[in-house]
């Protein structure tokens, strides 16, 4: 136990932790910036949202390691290629949930909104996005947890992150370093899960919580 705690005090631990978080946060932000506009473009059309959702599903089915292995020969070694790979991982869950969530908003609610003179932009901003928010945030959460976990693999293409420590532990045959690295990743993933869970609740309009209570009763 003591030796694991010592791992957390190594200077390279803090450095790799920062890289790990950087990789994850940037990948997630780019993922959101790409996936949300695409979802907004496609959700109105049944055909295009089916294309987006199916592409997303295929994307999710590809293992993280396979994506890294695909990126390496194309883009090479280092932080940027790792970032590209993680972004590719981040996009599908957000894209899928955002298009599904927007499509699921009851068309009669949208009709009522249009009938009262809300512009298309207002219907989207005041009605559709808030109602779809819980589903969209669930997608972002899935994506974030996946990115944090997969960032561990970035070390294989020279992207750094907590994976470095685990590999180092293997190379030196030091169990403490391996465990320390893994533990840190696990804790980071749990914090991400819980943190985004809280955000999701915060962004779920109260009226929708009431509805779901009603239905589950």
């Amino acid at each position, binding site marked *: 136990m003591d030796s694991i705690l010592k791992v957390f005090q190594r200077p390279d631990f803090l450095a790799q932790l920062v890289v790990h978080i950087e990789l994850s946060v940037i990948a997630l932000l780019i993922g959101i910036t790409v996936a949300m506009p695409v979802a907004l473009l496609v959700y109105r059309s049944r055909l295009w949202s089916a294309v987006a959702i199916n592409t997303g599903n295929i994307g999710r089915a590809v293992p993280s390691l396979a994506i890294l292995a695909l990126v390496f020969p194309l883009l090479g070694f280092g932080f940027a290629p790792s970032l590209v790979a993680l972004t590719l991982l981040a996009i599908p869950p957000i894209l899928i949930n955002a298009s599904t969530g927007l499509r699921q908003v009851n068309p*009669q*609610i949208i009709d009522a909104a249009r*009938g009262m003179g809300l512009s298309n932009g207002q219907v989207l901003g005041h009605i559709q996005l808030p109602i779809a928010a819980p589903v969209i945030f669930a997608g972002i959460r899935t994506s974030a947890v996946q990115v944090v976990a997969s960032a561990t693999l970035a070390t294989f293409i020279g992207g750094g992150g907590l994976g470095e420590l685990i590999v180092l532990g293997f190379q030196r045959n030091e169990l403490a370093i391996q465990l320390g690295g893994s533990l840190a990743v696990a804790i980071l993933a749990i914090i991400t899960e819980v943190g985004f869970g809280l955000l999701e609740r915060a962004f779920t309009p109260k009226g929708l919580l009431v509805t779901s209570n009603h239905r589950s009763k």
Partner: protein
Amino acid sequence: MIEFRGVSKTYPGSLHPVVNDLSFEILDGEICVLVGPSGCGKTTSMRMINRLIEPSEGEILIDGEPNTAMSGTKLRRHIGYAIQQIGLFPHRTIADNIATVPQLLDWDKIRIERRVDELLQLVGLDPAQYRGRYPAELSGGQQQRVGVARAMAADPPIMLMDEPFGAVDPITRNRLQDEFLRIQEEINKTIVFVTHDIDEAIKMGDKLAILKEGGVLAQYDTPEKILAAPNSEFVSSFVGADRVLKRLSLLRVSDMELDSTNGDGDDLPRISERTNLKDALSELIGAGAERGVVVSNGDGARGTLSIETIRRLSHQAEAEQRYE
């Protein structure tokens, strides 16, 4: 005034129009009921007024101006609309639902709050109890009232109401109809009201526009005229075999010319002058009497009413009836 001028609608990809050459006028302060069997184009006709649907032919004038004179969005902010399926916003409180259009029109906060409470009161929901609730916490009938309040929020001169009392049981519906007629007496809006229930149409309408299959206007007139003289087999069968009785239910005893009492009223049944003729007839038949004494609120005898008078009235109307 709303004026339909040769309005037709054919949906893309369809051969037949669902609304066919509609021309009629809805006067200010009147409730015009669009009524007809399911799928005859009532909702489509209504939605062309606020341009949620654009006509394929013809035009609709509002106060003499084509409704295309301003943007659809702006137009809709000045026409109240209660959609067929209520469509309350689940993520907003009742107060915020009702405040939707006033907020779009940038009313100040205090004015909006006051208006919301006033409307809740008007539709019979206690503001203190309901303004902070969410739609999911209301019954279907209560939601429907909020839908109506929301359509009235910015005090629009014109309101479109698509089967606004469709989702409630007959007793509640009856009460909502009465409440609504009472409210209309105060607010005097121009209202287009859709229903497929002929009884509701007769009760609510100053004018009925009876539509038939294919969106053709079969007859447009007051309920009394339509019941007295349906202009076709279709209208006649749509208003029902009991149309003579339905017509009697539109007239009150106080509307009739009464016979004098002749001082022999003591053993005759008493009928309040506020009763409608259908109920009065029922009372007379039930009491086994030919005549009854009509009394006003203060119990003063006003005269007598006989079954014969009612019969003559109905028969006259029947004789005027002509199919074209």
